[in-house]
């Protein structure tokens, strides 16, 4: 049986974190969830540095990445990940309130694997999070370990 893969959520807003975790819980997706509160923290985690130094549990199966965050924004995190061969294979799903065309265009051109606009309707939001979780953390085969440092 497959071991449950880790999902990483990069989100600055506590309400959104709560709602996302609630949505995942609702579908009994018991995967381990790591939360980073901004882009800088996300990069520290991915590179196992700062307060994550010495971490050796490998990369997450998928990263749910907000765009508008303090310090380092989601697009910058995406740019750094996709331009680093060690992280570029990691699936990244943009999960954001923005439907603006420039954000969409920038995300895809930087190499985002998916782009999901958070619906206002909670039920729709729950459905969206569930589908992302099920697809990327259960259905989808992640890249092999040796493709990621």
């Amino acid at each position, binding site marked *: 049986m497959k071991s449950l893969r880790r999902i990483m959520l990069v989100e600055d807003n506590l*309400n959104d974190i709560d709602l996302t975790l609630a949505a995942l819980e609702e579908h009994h997706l018991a995967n381990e969830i790591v939360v980073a509160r901004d882009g800088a923290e996300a990069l520290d985690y991915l590179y196992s540095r700062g307060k994550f130094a010495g971490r050796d549990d490998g990369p997450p199966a998928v990263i749910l990445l907000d765009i508008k965050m303090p310090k380092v924004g989601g697009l910058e995190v995406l740019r750094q990940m996709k331009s680093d061969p060690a992280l570029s294979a990691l699936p990244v799903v943009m999960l954001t*309130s923005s*439907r603006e065309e420039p954000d969409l265009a920038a995300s895809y051109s930087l190499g985002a694997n998916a782009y999901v606009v958070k619906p206002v*309707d909670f039920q729709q939001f729950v459905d969206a999070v569930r589908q992302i979780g099920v697809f990327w953390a259960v259905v989808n085969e992640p890249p092999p370990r040796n493709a990621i440092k």
Partner: protein
Amino acid sequence: MPLRDLPIRRKLILLLLLTSAVVMLLMRVTFFTYEYLTFRRETIRQLSTLGEVIAANSTAALAFDNQDDAREILTALKANRHLVAAALYDGSGKFFAGYPAARPVTAFPAAPDGEGFHFEQSYLSGFQPVTQRERRLGTLYLQLDTGVVMREWLWGSLQIALGLMAVIVGVAYLLSRALQKQVSQPILALAETARAISERKNYSVRATKLGDDEIGRLTDAFNQMLDEIQALNRDLERRVVERTAQLEAANKELNRSRAVFESIFESLPGLFLVLKPDLTIVTASDAYLKATMTTREKMVGQNMFEVFPDNPAEPDATGSSNLRASLERVLATGATDNMAIQKYDVRRPDGVYEERYWSPVNSPLLGVDRRVEYLIHRVEDVTDFVRQKPVQNGDPDAMRIKLEQMEAEIFQSSQKVQASNQQLRSANAELEAFSYSVSHDLRAPLRHIDGFAGLLGKSDGKQLSERGRGYLAHISDSARQMGTLIDDLLVFSRMGRSEMNLGPVDLRQLADETVQTIKRQEAAERKIKWELGALPVVHGDRPMLRQVFVNLIANAVKYSRPREEADIEVGLFDEPEEWVIFVRDNGVGFEMQYAQKLFGVFQRLHRAEEFEGTGIGLANVRRIITRHGGRTWAESVVGSGATFYFSLPKNPGIKT
């Protein structure tokens, strides 16, 4: 000199001489051959005669076997110095006696061999039988040296031949000299005539015909050719005369029209001065001459600034330097230059300067290569105008100061316009940033409200009263509705901001696509009678125009929902300047007094419980059509349907 370059006369003489020499030579060879053969025959005959005589004399000596007699007889042959050897043989063929006596026996032929004489190299030798009364007594041998004889004969013959040849060639030369004239004379005469014509160009000269042979015919042809040349020449001369006359007439006409134009120019009711690019004066209008108190003769060809110097009494005058700068600008740019009013002091013939105010305009006259060929300097004398103006303190510079003030004001207001443009740009950028944050920041709390209301309902819903649960539902509904409003507002703002992507758009195709989409969605279970008329292809932004059809047709479907069978028609009025497209339904309609409100943002004429919607669709339609340079309006009768119109200009000058 090669033969072909010799004069004809020499050629003819040489020809005749050569011919007679060759004929002569051939004749000599024939003669010589004949004489040679005759000579040989004669020699043989003479030798046989001699042989017969000797043989007759030798019969006794042979018959009596007397060798001494025989030797004596043979000795008599001495008389013939060319006879080199002779011998007698007896009847049995044995050597009997020889001559000369000293010649050894072995030098003679051993025995007679045949009869008759033969040439053998340069000798003639042979045997002759000696007989008496049919009885053969013996044989005589004779050998004659013919070499010397032959040489003597040949030498004589050659001398005769050479002598004859000399005489004949001499005679032939004299004859040919006299006769060649018959042939060469007419040719030379013809050549001389041709040379004379080509040198003197006198085509009336004719060659003299000297005979009716080929040369005579050549002379005829030559003369005929001369006739034609003469005729052509005459025709050409006539035409030159005609053409010259025409040219002179044209020239005269040109001069006349030039004079007319000059006088038109000179009498123009304006002050005009025409300059070359080096600023020398070409001409001036009479008005200009009058205003400057000078004459045309005094200025044409002169440099303008020498003719019109600054007033020496006013060293600070700027008129000339301003004018020079303006003319140089025209030369540099090739464009007309309007000057501000200038003060010029005009020098009167008596040397006194008169104060004048002129408003000059300098324009270029461009040649075919777009280079400035002439400068036209036109001035308006505004002296009276300036003087009449109530000028403060009587200061003549006040006008200039005023002008400068005006220029400064214009400059300031253009600065202001630029500043407000800048403000507009930054306001636009702010709007951009605002809509971004509306999209992102305003939606987030709404999502949270709905999310936590949902979570609350799930976790503690059972402990809430019926009313409490209703409140929760209202919270969710309101949040969702506000989300929709924000989304619509964003679309509306994007419609106004986004760049237009213009191209040909087939409206009929757009309408078809829209109807198909709507049929698949909400209208699937509805009974709708569609009527789509012909629609034009227009110049516009395709996605925007699609939005127009989507909104109008969706509205028609929505507001005809209460009807058993909906009638929806899309059609066209072809107006002279514009296309007018309409979407008509038989729905609930609206009251005409609110028609203008329809196209405002969030303006609704129905309650949300009756017909859903945020009231942004028609505002979008109006915004899109306005950006295409068209108009929007609507008509309706309450209860029996509505018609929405929009127009698109046929000749669009679309503002984007």
